[in-house]
């Protein structure tokens, strides 16, 4: 009955049996691409990290000194104090920022408060500002000559410099980060659960504790780790408003830039890496669960009007937005008045000084240049890298490696990455030494530092398009790169533009990653703000900070406009829907 006997099978000569398909030209190109991506991440992420490890056991002349730096560090009570201070300040910020963001996110997703879109936009503005801006603004509010200095006494404080200032500034800086994560977590709610609960006559509080909280548990965990890591490794705010309150991040800077003690700096850098790595693993676990929830089929929750609750939530959002705006507003105001508190008349002299007269005049232009170059090359590099991992074949062992490295970049604080860069690229024997103190190295460091979320954006976009495009092209004998340019890239254009905008905005604001890497020719706005503030030129510092925020806001608006026009022109197929 079995039909195999029907036909005599062709006799196949047992030949030599290779163990893989012969490589086509496509495969060869794709493999070279993959190797390039690995080489890039190894060279610009892994190698600098390794350099820190090496420096931690060397003296400044390159001799092996074992764990001397570690023991020296551990015996210094002043430095150990920095560890303790970093930790408790970070914990405090988490305790304020996350609940604050949670209620805000709750209001935006679960109430019928009016102006939700506006509230959301205002809440995200801190993302566009260098972390120094909030510190400067809080000094203006509460500093020695601050408008509200008197309020400090109510809380038993004598000065804003130190822990109180850092905490305030970091709450401002981390608020939108926590908010974005919690908004995602809360918007994943399954409306059917609430309908089921309602049909059983469940109270609002019971629903909150039995449905809402459990469903955004992982979002909360993720928000906590992100905020903690941000604060413990942030450098800008403590530098400006920290006064004598020494924390780890400032300590690294002092050791390396102040005392040229690279070994000690490396030790502190490694210390900073520990909480980041731990948070990274907790966070990646939490995100995995979050994604699992995302993929589950659910009916989105639509809030119903509830007058008292909605009014309460509106009031809360308005208050938070007012506070957030008062920070940017103060920075803006400071940049336009002559001399606080003696001469409040308006002037443009701070802008003139910051942009034309001071030693830091090129800074703003440099930041724009950095932003533009990073936006173009960063989005290209990230997207092509993600494409090669997701859509090509061969070199299977390399793909998880690239993915791991891409995720790891998030775990490395900017300050530590920058430290690694000087140790690695400034080494006289490194053939890449020529990169040191160029714009190129700044671009590379920013691309690598913000690789993770760009990579995830690209991967998500690529996963949404059909997996068989490459197989179809191969069967039609069209090289994969043609399909990449003709289909994949156009289809993913919104994601690519999104990555480009992200890179521009972070390039404008970043400080910790580049503070070790700039040269007089490549000084950046954020670095200039820090130096101007240090020199007491708080007006020009505020002017430059305001310029940075306004530029980023302008770019985001421009982006929104441009994508709308561009999408209308090139993505006509999208609107046809299905």
């Amino acid at each position: 009955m079995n039909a195999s006997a029907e036909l005599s099978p062709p006799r196949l000569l047992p030949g030599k049996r290779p163990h893989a398909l012969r490589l086509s030209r496509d495969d060869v190109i794709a493999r070279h691409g993959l190797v390039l991506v690995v080489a890039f991440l190894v060279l610009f992420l892994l190698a600098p990290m390794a350099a820190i490890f090496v420096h931690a056991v060397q003296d400044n002349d390159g001799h092996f000194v074992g764990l001397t730096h570690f023991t020296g560090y551990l015996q210094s009570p002043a430095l150990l104090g920095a560890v303790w201070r970093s930790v408790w300040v970070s914990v405090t910020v988490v305790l304020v920022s996350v609940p604050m963001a949670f209620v805000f996110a709750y209001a935006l997703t679960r109430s019928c408060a009016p102006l939700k879109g506006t509230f959301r936009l205002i809440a995200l503005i801190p993302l566009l500002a260098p972390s120094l801006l909030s510190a400067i603004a809080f000094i203006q509010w509460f500093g020695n000559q601050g408008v509200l200095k008197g309020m400090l006494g109510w809380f038993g404080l004598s000065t804003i410099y130190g822990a109180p200032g850092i905490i305030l500034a970091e709450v401002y800086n981390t608020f939108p980060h926590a908010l974005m994560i919690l908004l995602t977590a809360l918007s994943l709610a399954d409306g059917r659960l609430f309908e089921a609960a309602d049909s059983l006559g469940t109270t609002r509080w019971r629903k909150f504790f039995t449905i809402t909280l459990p469903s955004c548990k992982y979002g909360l965990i993720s928000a906590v780790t992100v905020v903690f890591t941000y604060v413990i490794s942030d450098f800008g705010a403590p530098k400006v408003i920290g006064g004598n309150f020494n924390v780890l991040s400032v300590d690294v800077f002092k050791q390396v830039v102040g005392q040229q003690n690279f070994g000690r700096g490396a030790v502190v850098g490694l210390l900073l890496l520990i909480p980041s790595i731990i948070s990274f693993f907790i966070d990646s676990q939490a995100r995995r669960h979050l994604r699992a929830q995302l993929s589950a089929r659910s009916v989105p929750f639509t809030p119903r009007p509830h007058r008292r609750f909605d009014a309460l939530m509106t009031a809360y959002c308005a208050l938070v937005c007012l506070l957030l705006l008062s920070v940017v507003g103060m920075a803006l105001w400071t940049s336009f008045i002559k001399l606080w508190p003696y001469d409040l008349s308006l002037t443009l002299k701070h802008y003139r000084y910051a942009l034309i007269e001071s030693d830091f005049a090129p800074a703003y232009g440099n930041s724009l240049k950095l932003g533009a170059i990073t936006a173009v090359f960063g989005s290209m590099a990230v997207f092509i890298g993600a494409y090669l991992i997701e859509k090509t074949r061969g070199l299977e062992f390399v793909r998880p490696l690239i993915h791991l490295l891409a995720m790891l970049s998030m775990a490395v604080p900017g300050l530590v990455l920058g430290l690694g860069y000087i140790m690695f690229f400034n080494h006289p024997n490194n053939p890449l030494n020529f990169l040191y103190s160029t714009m190129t190295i700044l671009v590379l460091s920013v691309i690598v530092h913000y690789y993770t979320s760009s990579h995830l954006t690209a991967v998500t976009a690529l996963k949404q398009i059909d997996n068989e495009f490459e197989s179809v092209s191969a069967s039609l004998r069209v090289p994969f790169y043609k399909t990449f340019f003709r289909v994949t890239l156009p289809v993913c254009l919104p994601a690519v533009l999104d990555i480009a905008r992200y890179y521009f905005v972070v390039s404008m604001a970043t400080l910790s990653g580049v503070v070790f890497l700039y040269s007089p020719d490549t000084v950046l706005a954020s670095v200039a703000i820090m130096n101007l503030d240090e020199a007491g030129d708080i007006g020009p510092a505020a002017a430059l900070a305001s310029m940075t925020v306004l530029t980023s806001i302008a770019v985001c608006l421009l982006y929104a406009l441009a994508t709308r026009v561009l999408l209308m022109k090139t993505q006509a197929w999208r609107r046809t829907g299905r």
Partner: protein
Amino acid sequence: MDMKLPEPVEGLSGQGLNIALAVDGVHKRFDNGFVALKGIDLQVRQGEMLCLLGPSGCGKTTLLRIIAGLETQTDGRIVQNGRDISWLPPVKRDYGIVFQSYALFPNLTIADNIAYGLVNRRKPKAEVKARVAELLTLVGLPTSGDKHPGQLSGGQQQRIALARALATGPRLLLLDEPLSALDALERVRLRGEIRRLQQQLGVTTIMVTHDQDEALSMADRIVVMNHGVIEQIGTPHDIYERAATPFVADFVGTVNVLPAVALGQDRFRVGRLELQCAEGCSTHAAGEPVRLYLRPEDRVAEGSLAGIPNRVWGRVGKVEFLGGSCVAEMCIEELDDQPLQIYFSLNQMHDLGVRVGHRMELALRSDRIRVFDAKALQ
């Protein structure tokens, strides 16, 4: 085994005459240790439509992807028209492929989608345009060239995917569950169309499906697979009427399974019943436990049953109404508690007065009962 085979499209030298594709001892073990295919041997004839049928995880899709060069076999060879393609990358092979997901390029027009492979071969523009128009007509969508895939229904999109795969005139067409994403009506309509096109063009086709109706209605031959091995290769009729294994009998169509004991001379005891089967239907010695497989329609219920073997009396327990036909669950005293599923057409239901509680006589067709070893069923 009488088979209607299309005339071979072209002659081939050597022993592989008429064979468009030969799969020889293909073995696939994935990196995680899962063995998807165990020594698959298969010959696909020139111009035939071959269906790989089986439950999910049986290895049918893996086999198709190996033929396409999208997966690599661990061992074994694949020869297409006399050319060993086992280790060629997909771009060097000669096939067109259609996926379940259509995989149409969403940002290109329908015409550009179909022309995708042609343009790359540097064909003159006019020629490409003519070929696209020809293919659009062929799949019955002559006016859709300027639309985008998003504007077409699922079935229309799959027609375009088919046109794109055929555009370059490949000698082998691979269809990977092409109808699974469509709704029921569209599915039946398109399955007729694909078959018509395939016969019209005479293109050798391998289709993967888990839907037995699809395989039975479209294929020249069906390859039933399970757990990485071929259970049976045969025409749809072979597969349905002469299932080679209990798995095939069970997977294709519905079947009553009766545990029985062989009595010798093609007689078997089931419960308190003694059944006669066709001569030479089994080699089981008396006393061996077996299983008898009987399809619900393999019974005689009309006219005089006198002289027909395997007559039983049963009472109608439950009736499931399916539209043009019904399945009655018959309780037969001699079979103790095991009910027997029996088909009646709607007309037979009326004519024979079949309804719940009705007692009637049936004869189980001895020529239709298949006998399998009791141990063979896992």
